[in-house]
């Protein structure tokens, strides 16, 4: 464990002074800030009726925004940028001549990126709450300060969204190892986004197998797809976990057996 933490700490040193950190901070803050601006500029349309918790609207707007490709692209960009540190500096050959197993190098990268993604959600929660209360203070008519957000639902959304991320994360982790050129994984993500919108517009049932749709499906499950639960998780989140397992296995095998750096 000590060894793993030590190695992961080297990954954090490598990420120092890179855009990856800014991406996590800006990524976590952008959507709450954007929704706050919408609430402040359109506040007269958003004054809640009696008995209605205004945080529900704040939550819905924020999470739908997050689900609509925002989190997907955050994860794709973060993964590309992080793995590009080695590609860009041509440092793979140095790492492979150090007394460390290739599998350890692989898991260091994987765990560090998962920590980064988790950090995104951890930062998102206080920023989102802070933004909501700030909007409430500026526009008391919105009554955000008179109510409180549903913290349990917020935490649950973060966990579900994280799980929904794992599928595309694993796909892009593999792509970012496979291709030195960042444009290729990003182009695939754009294509994935376009296909998702087409599937959504066409109300296609098979959308449940398409990993680029999972974020939005978590926030707003498509009405035309029968909701199946596997315990705590809806079907698409189970598929996300399945994609994660398949693509991490693929990238692990590629990294350990074939990848030359």
């Amino acid at each position, binding site marked *: 464990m000590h060894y793993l933490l030590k190695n992961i700490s080297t990954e954090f*040193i490598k990420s120092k*002074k890179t855009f990856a950190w800014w991406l996590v901070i800006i990524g976590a803050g952008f959507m709450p800030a954007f929704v706050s601006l919408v609430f402040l500029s359109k506040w007269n349309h958003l004054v809640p009726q009696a008995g209605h918790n205004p945080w529900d609207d704040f939550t819905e707007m924020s999470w739908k925004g997050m689900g609509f490709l925002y989190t997907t692209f955050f994860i794709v960009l973060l993964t590309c940028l992080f793995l590009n540190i080695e590609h860009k500096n041509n440092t793979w050959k*140095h790492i*492979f001549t150090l007394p460390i197993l290739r599998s350890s190098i692989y898991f260091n990268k994987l765990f560090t990126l998962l920590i980064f993604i988790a950090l995104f959600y951890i930062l998102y929660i206080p920023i989102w709450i802070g933004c909501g209360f700030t909007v409430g203070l500026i526009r008391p008519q919105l009554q955000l300060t008179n109510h409180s957000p549903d913290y349990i639902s917020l935490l649950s959304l973060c966990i579900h969204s994280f799980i929904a991320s794992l599928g595309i994360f694993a796909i892009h982790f593999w792509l970012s190892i496979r291709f030195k050129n960042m444009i290729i994984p990003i182009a695939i993500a754009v294509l994935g986004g376009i296909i998702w919108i087409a599937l959504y517009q066409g109300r296609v049932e098979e959308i449940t197998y398409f990993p680029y749709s999972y974020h939005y499906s978590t926030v707003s499950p498509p009405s035309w797809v029968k909701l199946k639960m596997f315990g705590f998780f809806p079907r698409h989140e189970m598929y996300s976990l399945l994609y994660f397992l398949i693509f991490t296995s693929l990238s692990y095998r590629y990294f350990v057996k074939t990848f030359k750096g």
Partner: protein
Amino acid sequence: MTAIETLNLDFAFSKDDLVIKGLNLKVEQGSIYGFLGPNGSGKTTTIRLLLGLLPNIENNIKLFGQNFKENRINILSKTGSLIEQPSLYEHLSGFDNLEITRRIRDANKNRIEKVLELVDLKSASQKKVREYSLGMKQRLGLAIALLSEPELLILDEPVNGLDPNGIIEIRELLLELNKQNGITVFLSSHLLSEIEKIVTHLGILSKGKLVFQGGRNDLKELQNHSATLHIETSDNQKSFEIISTQFKAPSNLNSQIIVHYQDKEQIATICKLLVETNIDIYKMQLQNNNLENIFLEITKK
């Protein structure tokens, strides 16, 4: 004991294109082994094979007497390396670059200060690497290679791109490390004059084949063997005929006769022969072939 040993090492990037052919390297511990060869001869490929960066299917590479495949971690923990341009995180400081390797190698914290001092980069350690000159980057690469006090240093073209001062600094540092710490140094280069000055052993690679391997004495012998006498006289044609009666394969090139040098008695005999036939000697010069010429001769074959 050998630090590096390969037994009939072959390597091909594609099926019918052998890049390394039956390579039998033998690098003694405590030596400075110069690995020489023209561009494209397979030096970097060999080094990549030695460090496990390319697959060695036949498993015929031994470092410290151990098979590389089965003992990769143990071998790499005793080996420092620098392959072509140093691999550095340009957005980080020199110190951070060292700290990354230090943590992975589990080296003592004070080693960073020591290696920075050794390569004279202490004052620039907090500067970003992208602001370093090529020489500074090369020195930092060397510092990273030295971080864990390795027993073996494998350096691929360590003086590539350095100015004369930088070359001298690295050369002196390698000699010091070898003499004081007993580190075995395996370095490749195409800067022949540099290798000549510091190596104790030499291997010459040509088109993937090791065409020469030996110690400094073998090299001296080879150097002597390939030395020539350059003679200019009042009658070169006649002199050529006279010398030919006594010595093998002289050549008469324009204004001078070239004879393979044997020993100092040979010079005396030639002088005597020419003087006895009333030929005036204008010039008699012994030209010791330097390593560069030997290298060119060998690799042309």
